[in-house]
Each structure stands twice: as structure tokens, then as C-alpha cells.
């Protein structure tokens, strides 16, 4: 079960990431080939940037790859899928020995996506960051702000205290 919102239909991604001369196929097989390139680089670098469509599609494939790999490297199907999806064979060891134990008892999904800002003047397609959780890199948002002391949160917090105490001793709100 994928624990993040996936689209109902796959994206066609017909715009070839690379041209036929560079050896990238076209059409559905070419699309899948491009996906393997992205999944491969994500497993190696654990944080990659690219156009939003490709990142989002590759995210689904990475999550499913991790779920299948969780069956262990003895399982023939898991090894076959990993062999297809990870062109660099040293990453297969990393997948089974590093990533699978890392996400063993995760309740959330194993990847996270951030949207990158639009460079001026805009018009280029949206880019985003796709990263595997638990990577050693510095966090994308170093110190997230805790807004519990902002004016409206303080007001609501005190309103809650009043509300709870009022409803506790039976006075109708």
C-alpha cells in the first residue's frame, strides 16, 4: 500500500529525456528506461533534483521497489526486479543491505518530495527534490519554524483552556 497520494493514471512522459541517438528508447519502453535511470540515481545519491513530473513518477517506482525488496534478497522475484531497476549492480547490495533495514519499521512512506522555487522569469517546468528519508545529507529545510508562540496560536491556546474548563464544569459553551 503506497502511503502517499498517487495519481490515478500514469504520466505518459512522452517528451524523451534523452534523444534516441543517446540510446534512450522512446514510447513506453523508453519511459520505463528513463524511470530506471532516475531510480538508480536516487538510490545512489539519496537526494536528487529534477522536473516535477519525472520525480513524482519515479517516486512511485522507488516506493514499490523498496516494498518488493523488503521480501529479502533470497526471493527470486525481488532480485529480478532489483536487477532490472538498478543498472549499477553495487546499488543492489545497498538496496538490500542498507535501505530495506532502514525502512523496516517505518509507518510513513520512505521518500519525501519538496517543490523548488520558480527561477525568474518562470515559464520553465516545475522542478522538485526527491529524497529518501534517513539520508545523511543536511535537511532541506534546516530549522523549521515553530509557530506555537505566534499571536493567533497563543489566543487559540488560551481559548482552548477556557473552552475545556468551561465545558468540564457543565456550563454550556
Amino acid at each position, binding site marked *: 500500500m503506497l502511503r502517499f497520494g498517487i495519481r490515478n493514471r500514469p504520466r505518459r512522459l512522452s517528451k524523451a529525456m534523452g534523444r534516441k541517438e543517446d540510446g534512450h528508447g522512446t514510447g513506453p519502453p523508453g519511459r520505463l528506461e528513463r524511470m530506471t535511470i532516475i531510480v538508480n540515481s536516487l538510490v545512489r545519491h539519496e537526494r536528487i533534483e529534477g522536473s516535477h513530473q519525472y520525480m513524482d513518477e519515479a517516486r512511485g517506482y522507488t516506493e514499490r521497489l523498496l516494498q518488493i525488496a523488503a521480501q529479502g534478497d533470497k526471493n527470486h522475484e525481488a532480485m529480478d526486479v532489483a536487477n532490472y531497476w538498478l543498472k549499477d549492480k553495487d546499488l543492489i547490495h545497498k538496496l538490500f543491505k542498507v535501505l530495506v533495514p532502514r525502512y523496516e519499521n517505518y509507518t510513513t512512506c520512505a521518500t519525501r518530495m519538496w517543490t523548488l522555487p520558480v527561477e525568474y522569469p518562470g515559464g520553465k517546468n516545475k522542478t522538485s527534490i526527491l529524497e529518501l528519508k534517513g539520508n545523511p545529507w543536511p535537511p532541506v529545510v534546516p530549522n523549521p519554524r515553530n*509557530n*506555537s508562540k505566534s499571536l*493567533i496560536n497563543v489566543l487559540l*491556546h488560551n481559548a*482552548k483552556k477556557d473552552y475545556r474548563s468551561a*465545558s468540564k464544569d457543565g456550563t454550556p*459553551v
Partner: protein
Amino acid sequence: MRLIVLPPLNVSLIFFFLRILTNVQFVRGRRRSCKAPSWFAKRRVEPSIYRNELTADNAEFVREVILDKYADKSSPLKEAPWPRNEWQPKRSMRGGLLAIKIGTVPQWTKDGRKFNCTMLQVIDNHVIRYTPPEVFTQSAGYKSKWKGAYGSLVVGALSSDPQLFSAQYLGLFKEAGVPPKRKLTRFLISPECAIQPGTPLSAMHFKVGDYVDVQAKTIGHGFQGVVKRWGFKGGPASHGPTKFQRRPGSIGSGRKMSRVMPGKKLPGHMGMDWNTLRGLKIWRMNTKYNVLYVMGGNLPGPNHCYVRIYDSQLPTHVQQRAQKPPPMPTFYPELDASEPIPEEIFDDELFEFTEPSIVYEEGKK
């Protein structure tokens, strides 16, 4: 004691009379408007602007206040419940329900005939507002062809979180005291079928064996040519028809006409248009999940689309209804239900799966 906060709010109550989903008004040819009329209350606000400001437990507290305010409110209004008038055959026109189409399923009759049933689930319907005919005739959206005979009953479905809606839209639900609804629709009703705002409606509004009309927006196919949109034959595929395979061909005759008649079938936007199927029989009903099994697998609209259901206006069914009056003006569980309501109610001609297989007697041909 709820503070009306923004001055424009009560102004909106008076002028933006009600958010009305006008049912189909067929101007010549097929015409639809995807844009809501200007006098609709502005519905949505961008939730993320506000949600990011609140901390987790404050958001939790706000949800708690919403539930306390709206959860199982007995009677929101101080004045007594409205009187239940008698059903007048041929004159009374009742309100209807706003349901969701959840799928089609095959069923069989007792004599082995197979047919498709569409399942419509009625989720969380409330009456939002009743407007008597004299006031309704002055309001926006009134059509003179109704000759002032009908009042308007606004029914809402799917209560949701008020933080998603604008102040104007929330103002519409103040009178009924119900949580804001994701979807509103209006039914033309005769004055004696008026229902008090805030009354919950359920599938028991109809009875098994009744005939209903069902309205929904058809699946949109975008800009389509005449072959798909109107079923034209188009041109021959071979023998050298230069660029004439799917074209409409001639669109008008010469001298006397020398123009294109209005309503001429041409390529254009196809689908996403209100469509009505009339006289569908209700074969079966599940009262626990408020699901109606309606005859026919060809209801307009995709799965999970909104569907408006109201008593069938075909003359035969209007007469039939005269003999078997439906619950007037709707079904009140605490008053009308004599014994506990069974979970599944079947039509007597429908084959119940608990019965043994059908066996044809020797005698019958």
C-alpha cells in the same frame, strides 16, 4: 451566541438569495454553462493559507469546537416543527435527494430476467432552506414558465469542515443550523410539501417500488467531432475520399434556406452536461447505508458523481402515486417508523439471493 463577524456577511444573506444549482434549462440545441451564475455565494477559500498558521493542537481544538457546535443537534430552531400537510394527488410535488452514484450491479427478477441496477448512496442530506412561492418568484434564478406554482427547497449533502469555505457561503447554513455542505441543489416543490430547514433526509424519503427521475452531469469528452458526438456515419474509408472520413458533410441547403439552422449538429464540446433519465423504478433499498438500487445501468455521469433524485414527473407515475401516497413531506424516522426498519427492503418481483434457485413448473409453457 455566534457573532456575525464581517459586515458584508448579512448583506450576502439578503441578496445572494441561495446557492442554486439550476436544473437543466434547455435553450435551443444543447447549451450548458460550466460557470456558476454571478449571484452564487463565493464558495471556496485556499485552505493552505490558513492551515499552515495553526499549530497541531490548535487545529485539533478548532475541530473539537466544530463537532460540539454541529454534532447531533436536536432541533436547531426555537419555533415548533412545521405541520405535515396532506398529500394532494396530481398537485403535490415533493422535494428530492442529492445522492452519489457508487456503481452498477446485476439483479434478477423472480422469473429469471436479468437487468442492471445502479446503486445510489444518499450521504448526509439536510434541508437547508425553504422559500415559499411568493418570495421565490422574486428571487434570482426563478423561471417565469413555472408560473409561481412552486416554492424552492434547497437540499445540501456532505457536511464538511467550515475552514474550507468563505464567510458568504457559511452564512447560507446559519438558518438551518447544519454544518456547511459541500454540495447544494434545489428542488421545485409545491407549498404543502415544505420541509423545515435543518431536517435530515434519508433514503426512506422514497419507497421501494416508486418511480423516480434521476439527473446527473454526463462524462465530459471535450471537443469532439460529429461522428462521436452525434453518431454521424462520416465518409468512406477507402476509394480515395480526399480528407473526408469523419467530416459533417453539408450543413444546409441552397437558396431558400441559405443559412445554417439553429441546433444543427456540428462538432463541439461533448458531455459534462446535465442529463435526466425519467421513470426509473426503485427495486431495492439498504437502509443501513442509505443505498437505493435504481433500474438501469445507463445513468449519466461517472462513478461517485452527484445525482439528483426526485419523484418521477411522467404522467403514468404521477397517477400511480395518487393511489400510493409517499411519506409526506418526507420520512420522519421517529414518527413514521412503526416497527424497527429492516436493513434491506426488496421489491416483491425482485429475486432475493436468500431464496432457492428459480424452478419453472411443468404446466407453464
